[in-house]
């Protein structure tokens, strides 16, 4: 079993025993619920402006899960052991990100279907919205790895992570919300895929660099 697979399996198992996607998905749906409460139940208004707001809820739900991603490994010494693995730290970070995408990202993307419907998205757009959320989650998690690694040594760094990571959320949210309102769906989806790819490639490199410093 390679170090990549071992790390992936372990993180999936740990996240699963820690409640899995229950809390993030619950948070996602709860935040979506607040939107019509804030906008008023007017269907026409929701139809016009509601669906892109699933992206705000999704971004918040991811942010909330990032804080402990590396902090726990730093505090309990697991990070030191990761540094002694034959696999480069970048690969192990990627494995952790992938685990998070599977346990948290995908369920949120799937929960995006009922959320988008509740916000009056046209039903034929829902599959595209779910797909865009799945891609967007990969982009969010890719840059989220960097934010989590940079703040791993900071106690109660949740707000700091959010502040650091939010500027990086801008491009996926822009293209994701274009999908949600049905504008240039194909183009937006392919750019979103590019964002996801870029974040997945660069995020682990920057995060691993930060984690090596954290271990000093």
């Amino acid at each position: 079993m390679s170090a990549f697979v071992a790390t992936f399996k372990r993180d999936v198992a740990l996240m699963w025993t820690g409640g899995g996607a229950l809390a993030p998905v619950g948070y996602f749906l709860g935040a979506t619920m607040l939107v019509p409460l804030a906008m008023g139940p007017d269907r026409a208004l929701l139809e016009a402006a509601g669906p892109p707001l699933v992206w705000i809820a999704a971004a918040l739900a991811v942010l909330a899960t990032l804080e402990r991603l590396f902090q726990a490994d730093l505090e309990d010494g697991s990070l030191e052991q990761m540094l002694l693995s034959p696999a480069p730290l970048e690969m192990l970070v990627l494995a952790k990100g992938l685990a998070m995408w599977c346990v948290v990202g995908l369920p949120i993307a799937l929960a995006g279907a009922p959320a988008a419907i509740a916000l009056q998205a046209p039903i034929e757009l829902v599959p595209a919205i779910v797909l865009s959320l799945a891609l967007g989650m990969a982009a969010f998690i890719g840059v989220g790895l960097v934010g989590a690694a940079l703040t791993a040594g900071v106690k109660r760094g949740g707000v700091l992570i959010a502040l650091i990571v939010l500027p990086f959320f801008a491009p996926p949210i822009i293209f994701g919300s274009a999908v949600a309102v049905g504008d240039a769906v194909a183009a937006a989806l392919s750019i979103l895929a590019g964002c996801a790819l870029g974040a997945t490639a660069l995020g682990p490199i920057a995060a691993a660099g930060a984690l090596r410093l954290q271990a000093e």
Partner: protein
Amino acid sequence: MLTYLSNPQRFMAFSAWAAPLFFAAAVIALGVGLPWSLVFSPADYQQGETVRIMYVHVPAAWWSMGVFAFMAAASFVGLVWRHALADVAARAAAPIGATLAGLCLITGSLWGAPTWGTWWEWDGRMTSMLVLFVTYLGYIALWSAIEDEEKAARLAAILCLVGAINLPIVHFSVEWWSTLHQPASIVRSGGSAIHPSMLGPLLTMAAGYLFLFGALVMMNMRAAIFRRRVESARARGGEA
């Protein structure tokens, strides 16, 4: 030049006279630029007197991006060659860049109110500037949250470099986004078609901003080096 100044002692000797000199140059340039832009330059045939806001707004936009580029370069040097003075420089520049970005947003809003009829327009440039401003805030917040200064410098440098990759991406995304959402209904002078009579005051103001940045970043670096000396002297005193 840069390698020469990379030694802290030499930097201190240089900045001791260079910082006041830059400051004086900034005062002169802004002192000339202020009446020039406010009184002696022509009003715009479309925008009237409000075009004068350009002379404070556009240099702020230019240098808030320029300062970030400076920080990214310093971060790169600090990260690759582990150069302490480069870390100090990057950190010293951040509050100045953040101030410029903030001023750019406020003056942009004050310009938008009479010309576009709104205090805030989500156009490409203002949105990108807002993202830049938030990036500055994140950078400063990360620096102040980490106690170990050496570690803070390295981590902030990583953030700065990643941010430097992000900003052009944000810019292009926002451009794409605004063409999607609003047909180009907003006409805005300042940009490609600029009258030569406006160029003089604009460049003078921009030079003033640049000199001021040079002076302030050196002063901030001097303060940081003095502070480090004080702290290390105390640490030695504490051990004895």
